[in-house]
């Protein structure tokens, strides 16, 4: 009976995705240019969410809640931006952004794995620290020398609809697609992934098998942090090209909802991120279309969507059993 219940839920999600596809196709025949633009924008809007969700799920799969993704993204965005201003080297800037995310991941791991403080509190500390530090060191009027440009993948770009949407993107957007697959492979097809998932479910069992629980958690949270750092770099170095106070705008938290919606799996999270991205892209489009809805209402949409997802009105799975509990050796 329970199985039936799950299946029906899956059915709803599948049906919804199919419906969305149909609507996209219909709108493509109706107005191809706008459809392409909206879809491309959806993909880009989904990039930081997908990356954030990857960061979140690496932590949670190993048993550590990361509610500090927002702060990680903000600080990485800021550091990446500063480095690009100072050196003008975008690649180097992205790398420092990624490194910043990893360092903050290290801080989070230190707090939640070694100090064993409340993980939600630890994440909140990182968020508030992120706002405080970027706010203090930010100076108005700094400008970068450009941002990461789109790379078109030759002939692939000429495929109708898919071409312009998928194969003409800046590097971090491509990298995100690759990372989704890589994380999926690592998590479900390598011994590292098997151990990571085990640590998130039953750390004591893993400890009795001679696997280092702390090392597993540290590594996953730090790598996750690096991915959040990439998301931050995306915001300043690929999407906007400059920094603003609080520019992450809650994406780090929305990413957690995306992760839950995606049932703690990379590919599911990516799908969920696309859905959120589509919602954001559509509202932007509506605004340009001269609709009379006040922009604040449209701006609320992703947040309300997140609440709806969290409340479990749409698809929900079982989180890793040991998530949020620090591990203590006897």
């Amino acid at each position, binding site marked *: *009976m*329970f199985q039936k*219940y799950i299946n029906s839920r899956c059915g709803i999600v599948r049906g919804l995705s199919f419906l969305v596809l149909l609507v996209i196709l219909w709108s493509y025949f109706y107005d191809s240019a706008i459809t392409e633009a909206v879809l491309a924008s959806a993909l880009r809007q989904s990039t930081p969410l997908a990356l954030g969700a990857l960061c979140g799920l690496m932590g949670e799969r190993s048993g550590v809640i990361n509610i500090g993704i927002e702060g990680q993204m903000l600080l990485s965005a800021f550091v990446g931006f500063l480095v690009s201003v100072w050196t003008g080297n975008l690649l180097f800037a992205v790398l420092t952004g990624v490194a910043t995310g990893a360092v903050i991941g290290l801080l989070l791991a230190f707090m939640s794995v070694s100090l064993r403080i409340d993980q939600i509190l630890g994440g909140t500390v990182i968020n508030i620290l992120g706002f405080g530090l970027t706010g203090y060191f930010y100076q108005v009027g700094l400008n970068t020398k450009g941002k990461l440009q789109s790379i078109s993948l030759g002939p692939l770009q000429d495929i109708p609809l898919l071409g312009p949407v998928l194969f003409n993107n800046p590097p971090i957007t491509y990298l995100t697609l690759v990372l989704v697959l890589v994380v999926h492979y690592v998590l479900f*097809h*390598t*011994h590292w992934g*098997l*151990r990571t*998932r*085990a640590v998130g*479910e*039953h750390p*004591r*069992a*893993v*400890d*009795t*098998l*001679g*696997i280092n629980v702390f090392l597993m958690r540290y590594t996953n949270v730090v790598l996750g942090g690096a991915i959040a750092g990439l998301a931050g770099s995306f915001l300043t170095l690929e999407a906007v090209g400059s920094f603003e106070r609080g520019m992450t705008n809650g994406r780090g938290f929305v990413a957690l909802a995306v992760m839950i919606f995606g049932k703690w799996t990379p590919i599911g999270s990516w799908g969920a991120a696309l859905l959120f991205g589509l919602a954001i892209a559509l509202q932007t489009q509506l605004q340009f279309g001269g609709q009379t809805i006040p922009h604040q209402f449209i701006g609320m949409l992703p947040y309300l969507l997140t609440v709806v997802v969290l409340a479990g009105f749409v698809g929900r799975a*079982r989180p890793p*059993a040991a998530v949020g509990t620090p591990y203590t*050796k*006897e």
Partner: protein
Amino acid sequence: MTQQPLLELHGITKRFGDALASDHIDFNLYPGEIHVLLGENGAGKSTLMNIIYGLSTPDAGNIILKGNSVKIKQPRDAIGYGINMVHQHFMLIPVFTVAENIMLGHETRWGFSLDKKKASQEIQQLSQDYGLEVEMDALVENLPVGLQQRVEIMKALYRETKILILDEPTAVLTPREVEDLFRVMRNLTEKGISIILITHKLKEVMTIADRITVMRAGRVVGTTSPSKSSEEELAVMMVGRKVVLQIRKKPLQAKDVLLDVKEFTVSDDQQMEVLHQVSFQVRAGEIFGIAGVQGNGQTELALALAGLLPFNRGRVCLAGKVMPSLHPRVLMNHGWAHIPEDRQKHGLVLPYSVADNQILNTYHQPPFSSLLRRNKEVILVNSTRLIEQYDIRTSGPRNPVSELSGGNQQKVIISRELDRKICCLLANQPTRGLDVGSIEYIHQQIVRLRDQGVAVLLISSELDEIISLSDTIAVMYCGKIAASAPSDHWTKEQLGLMMAGYSPPPKSLTWGNRKLL
């Protein structure tokens, strides 16, 4: 034996705060033997085994393996030396398959990937060699406990174990499964594996042990063998005094039915129906024992009866009144008392003081509260009285209950529940994990209530406890009451068979003059 021991412990000492958990322990294990480590709960058996397995490090002493002194700092070292342990609480990942659980930490790789196929073949081979059948792709959470234990043993075999430690392996098994386990153990020793068996059950010791080491309060009392000893002797060694295993009680004078449960159906929190149309009656002055292997619906039955889990269908009458709904507070007002299975989860708020725990469910009633205000003085006076009356060892009513021993924590719950005027008591695993002194005390209290005319519903997976206390015994299997009859109509063997799911009940079973299912 003139052979060289496989494993020797010399002067192992381990301290937790002020308490000595292991006090200069000497112990040795010969190749191919089953060495039982016998002792009460809290005697220090598990601590000692955790030291051998590298889960904790001794403050002093040596571990000698095949004549060489070794340091075991973490489980990885132990596994490397061929030492494996099957823990009392299984160390399995419920959402993983059997194969994934077995290979975890010892994975077969192909490049970066897991080679699931090859691992499966290896495990298959292993299960044939040792005659341990398990389905490779089943999720562990869907397996019965007996099979989960088998997976644990296979985990050890997959790591080519030489010394296997089994920590209270029979606690969760039916008598039949225990026999199976013993057969497997013999099989293993024939192949040269040495086994350390930790237990507190005397009867098992006599059947399976080659040698026995008895521990009490962190010390080794002595080492003996079944042929040189008797159950009584071992009991005295284990507890340090003579134990009255027999409980004296007045003959049954059952009167009115106080608890009447009809066609009670319950689903667990994942919407699986775990209790199917259970019906039974408990009379005043009767102890109604429910025996059964853990996980056959007893937990859900108790939670649902206590109003902590919603029930789907059925009817419950308490003292002749039909309960419209089951809610802990309504039940309490009708004279219901509940000793919960998991005392630290349901029964106590650990950071709270003893006094606050003793009014946990009566806090809103006078004299403990007037209007909205809590009367702290009354609460303390009440606690002081209960501490004395129920002989609770604590430094005072303000002491956090987390600092009490397990036995005294249970006494806090008992003092709270039994001090009211009650007509029906639900006692679920009331003595689990306690020392003999506390067990005796709690049994006395339960019998005292019965003699006063309270209807007692006792749920326990300790068959001996059920047999010695109950007036009527029912067996639960797969969410149903398989049979129930007055206790003197059962033999232990029949109970064991019923617990393992052999129905219909054996012919020799007479059903008494009660209306049964």
